[in-house]
């Protein structure tokens, strides 16, 4: 048994063995196929695939809508977290539990519900129609769906930080003459900023890969509202495995970079607190 430190506890070999075997077979092996399959393509073909106008359009749609949605979630997520942590109102606990709904609800259910809400004669859509605002089958609809999906990420990341904020620091600022808005901008916000950034990154990462809640409301028009996951499925259905993997590889790389960034942000935040 390979042990770096002598430990009295048993089960190291067994647990590490199970873990590594599982990870290799269930995670690494399947993911490896993306890389090996793309390697089948020559550089020229690879580049040609991902620079195809339709593919580029889908990247723009996915990343663009995800970015805007994550931004909306950052602003409103901070507001929701603030209200939940700081204020008392009837039903606060229920509202707090509800924030996790997008985690618990199957994406397909969210997808059809949102679509039906925003069609021209839907509950919300009918009020937007006279203003010429179309949500269903547009870029706007995609963003709306992604806002739904990403909401808990920002709220849950920011809540513990707000909770830990010492009251004394805000009292100190008040005793020094700061107005409430000044205290918020100069003292509270900088402290919460790392958590906001992490929440944004999490919401963004989730949004770019999202399929079920988006595919119904987007209309999937190539070049206009086609998201990358759908494009991948289309290519798979056409047995264009190489093309699908090429597109997927770019997504995977972006996701991994995001994952690393998020981990780094959280590690840096922990270090600052432990000072």
């Amino acid at each position, binding site marked *: 048994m390979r042990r770096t430190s002598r430990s009295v506890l048993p089960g190291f070999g067994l647990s590490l063995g199970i873990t590594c075997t599982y990870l290799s077979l269930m995670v*690494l092996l399947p993911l490896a196929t993306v890389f090996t399959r793309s390697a089948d393509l020559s550089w020229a073909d690879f580049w040609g695939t991902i620079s195809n106008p339709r593919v580029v359009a889908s990247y723009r749609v996915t990343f663009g809508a995800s970015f805007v949605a994550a931004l909306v979630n950052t602003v409103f997520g901070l507001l929701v977290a603030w209200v939940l942590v700081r204020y008392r109102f009837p039903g606060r606990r229920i509202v707090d539990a509800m924030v996790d709904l997008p985690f618990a609800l199957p994406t397909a259910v969210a997808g059809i519900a949102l679509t039906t809400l925003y069609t021209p004669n839907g509950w919300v859509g009918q009020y937007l129609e006279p203003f010429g605002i179309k949500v269903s089958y547009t870029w706007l609809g995609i963003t709306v769906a992604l806002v739904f999906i990403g909401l808990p990420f920002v709220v849950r990341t920011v809540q513990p930080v707000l909770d830990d904020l010492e009251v004394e620091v805000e009292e100190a600022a008040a005793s020094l003459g700061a107005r409430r808005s000044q205290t918020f901008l100069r003292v509270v916000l900088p402290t919460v900023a790392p958590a906001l950034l992490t929440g944004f990154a999490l919401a963004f990462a989730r949004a770019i890969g999202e399929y079920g809640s988006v595919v119904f409301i987007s209309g999937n028009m190539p070049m206009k509202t086609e998201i990358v996951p759908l494009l991948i499925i289309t290519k798979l259905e056409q047995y264009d495995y190489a093309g699908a993997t090429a597109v997927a590889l770019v997504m995977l790389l972006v996701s991994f970079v995001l994952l690393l960034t998020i981990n780094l942000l959280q590690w840096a935040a922990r270090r600052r607190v432990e000072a």
Partner: protein
Amino acid sequence: MATVAVPRPATTAPRAITRATGESPAVRWTLTAIALAFLAFTLVLPLVLVFHEALSKGIEAYLAAIREPDALSAAKLTLLIASIAVPINLVFGISAAWCIAKFEFRGKNLLITLIDLPFAVSPVISGMIFVLLFGMHGWFGGWLFDHDVKIIFAVPGMVLATTFITSPFIARELIPLMQEQGTEEEEAAIVLGAGGWQTFWRVTLPNIKWGLLYGLILCNARAMGEFGAVSVVSGHIRGETNTLPLHVEILYNEYAFAASFAVASVLTLLAFVTLALKTLVEWQQRRAEAEDTEDVPPAERIAA
């Protein structure tokens, strides 16, 4: 015998930022109203719509849609997949947490990152990789075809994809929990003569039970509700390779809206149950933590 301290429920009330240094009541109420309006619009409205549409053709049509054979077999398949994926990930989660939390070794951080990987992968890609492995033109495609084993466009593929997607849930929940609890209790048990399994059952498991339950609830909710990954692998064969979420999609695409929402409402109720269980477990967790860290004066201890 265990001593039971006087139970004090953990508070979830907001900390007292006094009137003297907080926002004015007008600001508070405005912010609260905006936040609640946003949540109502984003979260509650779609929920209400699901049930409204589900019942739009009357209660009989609702029940019929749910009892329809294809719906029932979709439900069965959903349960089957969850009942395989969740236990597998339970074993994985506990193993990973055990070796990471209780031992020191090189490459630990790499291992933790690898465990997190499936979270970073889009559901569609999660399905795609199994198609690449086991599909007709996949690595093992030829071998499988020769031996007449169907994985893709059949249940095994769906199980695999779901297992992949939900693998981090339990591990991510247990690892920080067990790291925080340290190794002292287990070491004490070993010193007292307990064996490995005994130590795990009697010492570790009771300590992690709430975190474990929490991870199980999340893992199960995701396993039952997964759509994208399963969609890629399933082939959408009605009555055979459709889970409840896929069935919702099929009905919707056939313009059977009321039926689609009826099935969706079942999934929504499942989500509510998940949320309720989650909240319950969190509450229990907080209570357990509060009792552990409190200095309860001896006079208040009641011998059980």
